[in-house]
């Protein structure tokens, strides 16, 4: 059973070096049970190395990893489901047999595996492909099969590394839905991605890393609130001159049809609105914008630099 009060996963001052290169530097993080935890950062930030240490493929040079309340060890691997970013299938092996093999590697009995395989293939609309060889499947279908391989043994911790890359929009939605179902059924999920928009929609907690170091972590909603910048999205006619005031506005950028305006710390949206109204500007849109993860990330990276 999952203890709701204790973290599923604890990383304490974890560091991993490859020769001269430090891939992960002094990373401390906690993942709480039953939540979707986003590991976010640009390519090469150290996400995959971190995950490989969590699934016990590599061992940290220093620091400590604790999973399900125990120090990391091989037997815990059976309770983890892992969809790596570098993923593949045996090309000449039939889909059904392949899934059965991966299930056996997680100590699942053959009969139980067969039952679950049929259910999962049906759910992801792959039933008719069960006896086809992997090489005959499209890339998207292969990816679904790989996903099934990572959940077939009903792991307590599911780690998905860039699960949406290469999927068509319909499949992306199906995958999101499936991930949220896993969360509902009590699984803890670590989602690693560089696509901030996806992380924003799925994650409860996030940890951002950049250049092998943690930039910040926490509850996504709180992070956003604490980061509430005064950003206003505008759609106006004839406001050009008004937005040049440095006392009021620090930055202006164009986002599609919208003009996004970043206000100074002292200013408030009310003042801006009043100015616009006073100047008889025609306003078709005036909206307070929540900061995106992207904004937060960029700001935090600048801050820590």
């Amino acid at each position, binding site marked *: 059973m999952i203890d709701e009060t204790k973290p599923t996963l604890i990383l304490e001052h974890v560091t991993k070096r490859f020769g001269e290169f430090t891939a992960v530097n002094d990373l401390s993080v906690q993942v709480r049970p039953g939540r979707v935890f986003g590991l976010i950062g640009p390519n090469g930030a150290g996400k995959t190395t971190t995950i490989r240490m969590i699934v016990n*493929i*590599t061992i940290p040079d220093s620091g400590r990893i604790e999973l399900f309340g125990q120090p990391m060890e091989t037997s815990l691997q059976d309770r983890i489901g*892992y969809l*790596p970013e570098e993923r593949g*299938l045996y090309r000449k*092996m039939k889909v059904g047999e392949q899934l059965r093999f*991966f299930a056996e*590697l997680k100590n699942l009995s053959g009969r139980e595996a067969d039952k679950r395989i049929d259910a999962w293939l049906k759910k992801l609309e792959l039933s008719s492909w069960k006896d086809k060889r992997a090489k005959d499947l499209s890339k998207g279908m292969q990816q679904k099969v*790989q996903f099934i391989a990572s959940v077939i043994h009903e792991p307590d911790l599911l780690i998905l590394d860039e699960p949406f890359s290469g999927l068509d929009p319909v499949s992306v939605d199906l995958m999101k839905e499936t991930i949220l179902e896993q969360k509902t059924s009590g699984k803890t999920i670590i989602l690693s991605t560089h696509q901030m928009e996806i992380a924003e929609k799925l994650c409860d907690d996030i940890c951002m890393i950049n250049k092998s170091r943690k930039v910040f972590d926490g509850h996504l909603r709180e992070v956003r609130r604490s980061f509430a910048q005064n950003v206003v999205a505008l759609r106006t006619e004839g406001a050009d001159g008004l937005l040049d005031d440095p006392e009021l506005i620090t930055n202006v950028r164009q986002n599609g049809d919208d003009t996004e305006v970043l206000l100074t710390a002292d200013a408030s949206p009310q003042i801006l609105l009043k100015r616009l109204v006073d100047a008889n500007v025609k306003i078709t849109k005036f909206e307070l914008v929540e900061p995106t993860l992207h904004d937060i990330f960029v700001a935090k990276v600048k801050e820590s630099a």
Partner: protein
Amino acid sequence: MNKFFAVVKREYVQRVRTRFFVVATILGPLVSIGFTVVPALMIGLKTGAPPRIAIVDQTGNMYERVASEISDNEERPQTATPTMTPPGAAGARERAQQTAKMVKPDYALERVDLNGRTLDEVKASLDRRVASRDLDAYLILPPNLLNGGEPEYHARNTADMITKEQLQRSISQAVRSQRLVENGIDERRLDELSKPIHLKARGVGGEESKGEVGFFLVFGAAMLIYMSVLLYGQVVLGAVIEEKETRIAEILFSSMRSFPLMMGKLIGVSLVALTQLGIWAVTFVAVSAWAAGISSSIPHISPFIFIYFAVFFLMGFFIYATVYAVVGSMVTTTQEGGQLAMPVVLFLVAALFVSFNIIRSPNSPLAFWASMFPFFAPITMLVRVVTETPPLWQILLSLGIGIATAVGLIWLASRIYRVGMLMTGKKATLPEVWRWVRQE
């Protein structure tokens, strides 16, 4: 353990089920039959009508003997040459001799007398007949045949070694018999008197020596190891590289440690190899039993030797197969792997050469050390076992070293493989590999 068996099962089932395996299993024996039986059959093929040979007998009394020797082609005991020609040593001449013995062509013989004509006239007329294909060849027996006169053989096809050998032997035989008769020696009595003895070699314990049979057993073991390593080494290599190429390695390592994975792969592929070899062996035994009757075709060897044969064959196979596993863990494509593994296979050839020396002095220090060196031991220790069986502790030590080497190599391979996988994509240099091995 379950995971290990899952890997073994996958490697085995996926390979045995392929069309390639089925085809190779069926074609293997057919090809080897093709290389051994068919040439023999082809030489023995009757090429139409028997060769027509005219014999010009100038001695006046030799025709009957020569003709009967030629048509009655049977061996006489005292002329039997050693039946076992060392493999490879037989020159074209000897091979023709042997084949001539094996094949029994018929000849259509014809007696030609001079009848007052000169020899040249007769020759000219025979030459015309040969040219007009009325005749294939003719023999001229000179008047002084018994005293060193050389017979002549004229034929359209002088390249026909087999016929030439046969005629030469027949004439010698006839001349010899005639000389004996003329010197008043009873031919049959001479046959009895000159009966050869057979040197029965016995070990000091009194048991009959298995030396000769043993040599062929060792040679067979060496060939078997060599062939199976060449055939299946590539398969091992491919199996190790497969997960790298398909990028499955990471999923596997998130489920199990690399040593049982490597071991499982090796055992799985080896079982495939043994299945195929087993099918071939059973087929071979069945066919030869059917062809010759089992008692005569299989020499009597103690069952212990067969057990040693099996044990050392397995050890040899595993040691060399693990070499391919190590190589596979370092490279990214099968092609470069094959090139890298080749020099190691040369050890097998070296072992065979060393074993020629060991056969003569099976208890020399060289023999001892060669049978402890794991890459030689499968062959050299087997040589010692069949020649002058060494103390049991030496056999066990040699086996122990061999097994330890194989396991050590698998450990090395799994180590290199795991670390190498994390550095995806590029070919490793040797210093890098060394660092990986030491790295935790």
